[in-house]
């Protein structure tokens, strides 16, 4: 198998130029449209843009980093020295499973938090944010936890059965 040929630099340069041109036109149109906004709308826009970055980098990223690092630490310790003498090796596939559950729960939480805030301020009329969102969110997290635990248990049983079938030597050399 030979390495695929690199694209001719001319093609690459043309594509880049076209992208930059399209981007510049987009930015220009956006800038012109901005001038049509009311000063108060411009202020809200600035707050919205800055708050998005601050919330993402200042709150969301540290939370996710700490959660992932903490989870990884616990799993590694369990698999190695164990916690209080108890050892447990997470079956293959646990990582993506737990990540998926956390992502689903996290996204639903992000949807619900503004609704809880709106309800605490008092809805403008009874057709706005009518649901009991807090209780439903707790329920959703509970369902996710049950799914994660049940599926991990299933994977764990499967791994154990496989280990029993295979001779120990085969396991050591994957």
């Amino acid at each position, binding site marked *: 198998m030979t390495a695929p040929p690199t694209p001719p630099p001319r093609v690459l340069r043309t*594509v880049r130029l076209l992208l*930059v041109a399209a*981007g510049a036109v987009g930015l220009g149109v956006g800038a012109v449209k901005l001038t049509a906004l009311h000063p108060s709308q411009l202020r809200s826009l600035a707050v919205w843009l800055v708050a998005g970055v601050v919330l993402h980098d200042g709150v969301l990223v540290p939370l996710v980093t700490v959660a992932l690092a903490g989870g990884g630490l616990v799993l590694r310790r369990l698999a190695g020295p164990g916690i209080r003498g108890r050892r447990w090796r997470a079956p293959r596939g646990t990582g*993506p499973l737990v990540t*998926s559950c956390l992502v689903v729960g996290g*996204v639903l939480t992000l949807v619900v938090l503004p*609704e809880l805030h709106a309800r605490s301020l008092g809805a403008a*009329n009874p057709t706005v*944010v009518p649901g009991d969102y807090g209780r439903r969110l707790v329920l959703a997290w509970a369902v996710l936890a049950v799914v994660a635990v049940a599926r991990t248990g299933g994977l764990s049983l499967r791994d154990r059965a496989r280990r029993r079938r295979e001779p120990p030597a085969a396991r050591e050399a994957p």
Partner: protein
Amino acid sequence: MGALAIHVAAQLPTIVRHWRRERAVSGGQVSTGSTTAETTTRRGFLVAVGAGVAAVVLLTAGQSFRALRRTNLFAPRVQGLGPQGLPVNKTAAAARVHDAATDPAWTLTVVHGARSVALTRAELEALPQTEVELPIACVEGWTTFARWRGVRVADLLALVDAPSGTGARVTSLEPSGPYRTSDLEPAFAHHPRTLVALELGGEPLDLDHGYPARLIAPARPGVLQTKWLTRVETT
């Protein structure tokens, strides 16, 4: 969008290199997802993101799509919830129109240049009525279809001899607010499905839906379907 396009342009050589290398590596040998960092494989990432998107769609899209209304746990609106089965954004109380809208002396004034007529609700009801099935499609993200009945704006404009090329501006009883008036381009103003609605779902409009008369037209965001009309003038 513009910034994104420029960003891709700046990173294009890196992107191309990445995909070329990937193909060169996987060309001869079997290449499955990495086993060391299980949580960050491409497949794991796509599954997690896909599951998140699917969950949000399943649990919120019911505010606009009838088929998913039973699983609508987290959307800010509920299909069919509201007076006459339709959600409300701004109530009559919030718009401070209650007294003006319930005044028996209310009339709708239609103006074209020096010509003008003032029509009571009874006079509007006596004009030819049209029934349409049109949605309130709010930019907040919810949409609900409803059956409206009322007088064509085109018929009202004909009463004051407005030619077919004219647009129209409708004005609400609302004393203030950015959506107190809205403009109809000529094509909208003379469209056969553009109505001054008097009824919703076979009943007189609820006060919160714009009684005594509101605008309903195809292909307009909800906030421009002006409620509690007092005036229609050509532009």
